[in-house]
């Protein structure tokens, strides 16, 4: 891990948070602790309660039960103090449609109590950083979805916040812009911000997060580093692609020595989890040769977060 263990104070702590909307228990005993300077990825299927958690932690919503601190401050009783130290990008971009991109950033800058001059130069910096320099003087209603999203992120970064909440920050961005957004997030983390990030893209969590919490029905069901989560569902993955689908059952019998393989007839692929990489590889290769099964591709890889996600939320 790139972050020093010395920074061991927690920037964000939630204990037993509960929130009900009518009959729906959006949060049902939500616990989480994120150390200072870390990026925590919050994953979970639609409706798991991710947005609700973010809204409570960023003081927009009051919990029915439990408690939470952000930057050491209680979100319920010290909300005004908390707001001085956080940045929030909501799931839907929250930008003023009638203003131009530049006017938006200048307005939010003034509301962070920058002087008119500071707000102007900060707006210019952010427009450049987020690739909006040319669109800066256009009204938001003429922006594309991705441009809105980028402007929204830029507004969140006006003041380097101690704790940053990003609710699906890159939804709707193309790969290049997603990379730029990731870069901007990394810059803030390097400057010391702690980040709570919800996302549907598991590669995003893999790229950015030091810690991952998987949420289901309002509760964290698994938590740990990406590596820990991956090893939790078994060791490395051996992927085998055959030339001929008719060989699948026989190859399956060979792989059964390691565990029950997952079989995908369409791509003629078998996957099994193994513990000892090298001996497994040579064992399988030898057995295939002996049976005369033609192998198109064989590879060894770490499990993906997608596999973890599908398994724990199933």
């Amino acid at each position: 891990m790139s972050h020093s263990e010395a920074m061991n104070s927690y920037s964000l702590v939630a204990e037993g948070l509960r929130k009900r909307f009518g009959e729906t228990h959006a949060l049902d005993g939500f616990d989480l602790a994120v150390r200072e300077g870390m990026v925590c990825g919050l994953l979970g299927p639609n409706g798991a309660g991710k947005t609700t958690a973010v809204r409570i932690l960023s003081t927009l919503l009051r919990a029915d039960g439990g408690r939470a601190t952000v930057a050491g401050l209680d979100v319920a009783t010290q909300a005004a103090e908390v707001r001085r130290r956080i940045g929030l990008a909501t799931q839907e971009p929250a930008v003023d449609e009638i203003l131009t991109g530049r006017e938006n950033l200048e307005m939010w800058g003034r509301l962070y109590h920058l002087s008119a001059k500071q707000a102007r130069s900060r707006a210019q910096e952010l427009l450049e950083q987020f690739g909006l320099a040319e669109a800066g003087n256009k009204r938001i209603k003429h922006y594309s979805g991705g441009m809105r999203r980028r402007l929204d992120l830029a507004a969140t970064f006006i003041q380097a916040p101690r704790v940053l909440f990003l609710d699906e920050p890159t939804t709707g961005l193309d790969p290049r812009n997603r990379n730029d957004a990731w870069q901007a997030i990394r810059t803030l983390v390097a400057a010391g911000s702690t980040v709570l990030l919800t996302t549907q893209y598991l590669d995003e969590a893999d790229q950015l997060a030091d810690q991952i919490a998987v949420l289901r029905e309002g509760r964290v069901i698994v938590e740990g580093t990406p590596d820990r989560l991956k090893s939790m569902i078994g060791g490395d993955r051996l992927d085998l692609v055959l030339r001929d689908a008719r060989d699948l059952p026989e190859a399956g019998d060979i792989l059964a020595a390691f565990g029950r393989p997952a079989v995908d007839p369409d791509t003629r692929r078998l996957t099994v989890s193994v513990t000892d990489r090298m001996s497994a590889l040579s064992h399988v290769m030898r057995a295939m040769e002996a049976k005369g099964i033609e192998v198109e591709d064989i590879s060894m890889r770490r499990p993906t977060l997608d596999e973890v996600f599908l398994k724990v939320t199933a």
Partner: protein
Amino acid sequence: MTYVLYDSWTIARTNLVHWRRNPTAIASGLLYPVVMVLLFGYVFGSAMAVAGADDYRDYLMPGMFGQTMAVGITSTLVVVTTQASYGVTDRYRSMPVSQAGVVLGRAISDMINSVLELAILVAAGLAVGWSWHNGPLNALAAIGLLLLLRFSLIWVGIFAGLKLTPEAAGASWMLLLPLTMVANTFVSPSQMPGWMAVPAEWNPLSATVAACRRLFGNKGWVGDSWASEHAMLLAVAWPVAITLVFLPLSARAYRRLSR
């Protein structure tokens, strides 16, 4: 606390930019009253007679001023609901912006709009032959009472705006318009059936309009009920009471959004 004024000015400026970029709002806000003056002054005015008034248009104009101030509540309402419905309010609320600043910013920009509206109406009134007869100081006092009424209704607009959907807010004038007419705005309550005359006389709008007629020196019906005789007092007391009730309510509604 020190930032309340800075915040409110930032927000008021933004609101004014919104208003400037919305041609329909400008047209309806500024032209509609002029159309109403012409409509009531000449179309209905020719058929109207109010006890004690020599000239209907002289009686009408203070009513028009008052009604415009009252109907202004819908513009506050519509803006507040649409803003609350698209996320921007969430951003305000996650920032260290003073709540008083946000609400006060709305009030400042609405007051600037109202001053403009009133200036145009006064000009339209002068053009159709209305005038004040008691000197400029009394006329200014009347303008002050009108703006006081508008100011108090801003808080009602913000409060209702935070509680209603944009659709409901858009339809609110259907309720509001009759309320501005069950008053002494266009006719004298003495011409109404008794069950309607009482609320018409006690209507806060009637107090402001009656007080304005007195200050402008525009002749017309003066009732003999307690409310009519103390119009000047009520024209101050009503707005103050409304503000005292709805200012805290709207600040609270803002704080409690989506709880």
